[in-house]
């Protein structure tokens, strides 16, 4: 870089400027890496975040990465339903995740042994949409039961 002699009363520090320049380049690379991963869903809403768990009872589509106080949708599909879908959400899940609304609305809700059980009358293939909103940041791994079948969900909730 050009070295000059000047008559200005100026607090120019070129060694710091050169070091700063190198840090800037690293920071810009970090910015673009973060933007790329954010675009593909590292902080939610993207293919990296979209997840699905399934078993012989059905499947649950949800987002792995959530942001505090940002709503997201969990879609529960139950196969071979005889008369109703019984969705059991454990209390540790509800401590982190608030339920905004169900579509369709449950017919009943019961509190059974630290688990809230929602009942939706249905037959055949039933699809329930659950709009949720994280209440606090953290890491959450839990089991949701749908008609007695276990689905393991894992969330990282960013602040």
């Amino acid at each position, binding site marked *: *870089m*050009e070295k*000059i002699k*000047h008559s*200005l009363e*100026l*607090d*120019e*520090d*070129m060694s*710091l*400027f050169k070091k*700063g*320049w190198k*840090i*800037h380049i690293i*920071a*810009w690379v970090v*910015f673009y890496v973060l933007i790329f991963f954010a675009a593909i869903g590292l902080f939610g809403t993207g293919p990296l975040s979209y997840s699905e768990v399934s078993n012989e009872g059905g499947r649950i589509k949800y987002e792995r990465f959530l942001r*505090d*106080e940002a709503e997201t949708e969990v879609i529960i599909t139950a196969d071979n339903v005889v008369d109703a879908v019984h969705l059991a959400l454990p209390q540790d899940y509800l401590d982190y995740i608030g339920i905004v609304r169900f579509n369709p609305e449950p017919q009943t809700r019961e509190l059974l042994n630290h688990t809230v059980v929602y009942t939706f009358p249905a037959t055949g293939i039933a699809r329930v949409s659950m709009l949720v909103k994280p209440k*606090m*940041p953290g890491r959450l791994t839990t089991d949701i039961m749908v008609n007695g079948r276990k689905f393991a969900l894992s969330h990282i909730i960013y*602040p």
Partner: protein
Amino acid sequence: MNPVIRGIVIYLFLMLIFRLSGKRTLASTTPFEFVLLLIISEVTQQALVGEDYSITASLVLILTLVGTDLFFSVIKSRFRMFEKVTEGTPVILVANGKPLKERMAKTRVSEEDVLEAARNLHGLGRMDQVKYAVLEIDGSISIIPEEND
């Protein structure tokens, strides 16, 4: 999240991002950059308050932001090096009418930017009329005209 923690996190993040993106970024040199700055302030406001529109949260946030700024201004006044690291130092871009190309490239300032500042500040029309052009820590360009004897 607690408003105090929100305020401190946002303050530190903004300080970091503005320092690392360079002096010329968001120096409001173009109308678009000014609009971008407004958008950033709007996004920041949402992140700060979330869904808490209470007066208490606003007062706590204002107190936190002013308190954090006061804290850093005291640190900067006591430790000159900290100020240099967090705010940078001025950089000479033109000396005796000659543009210092490498410095200008690294600070993303073009000769046209310097000439624009020369026109605006001193009514100068040519580079050889500029004795020094300095990129200040706020991203603005100061011009010292060549003295005519």
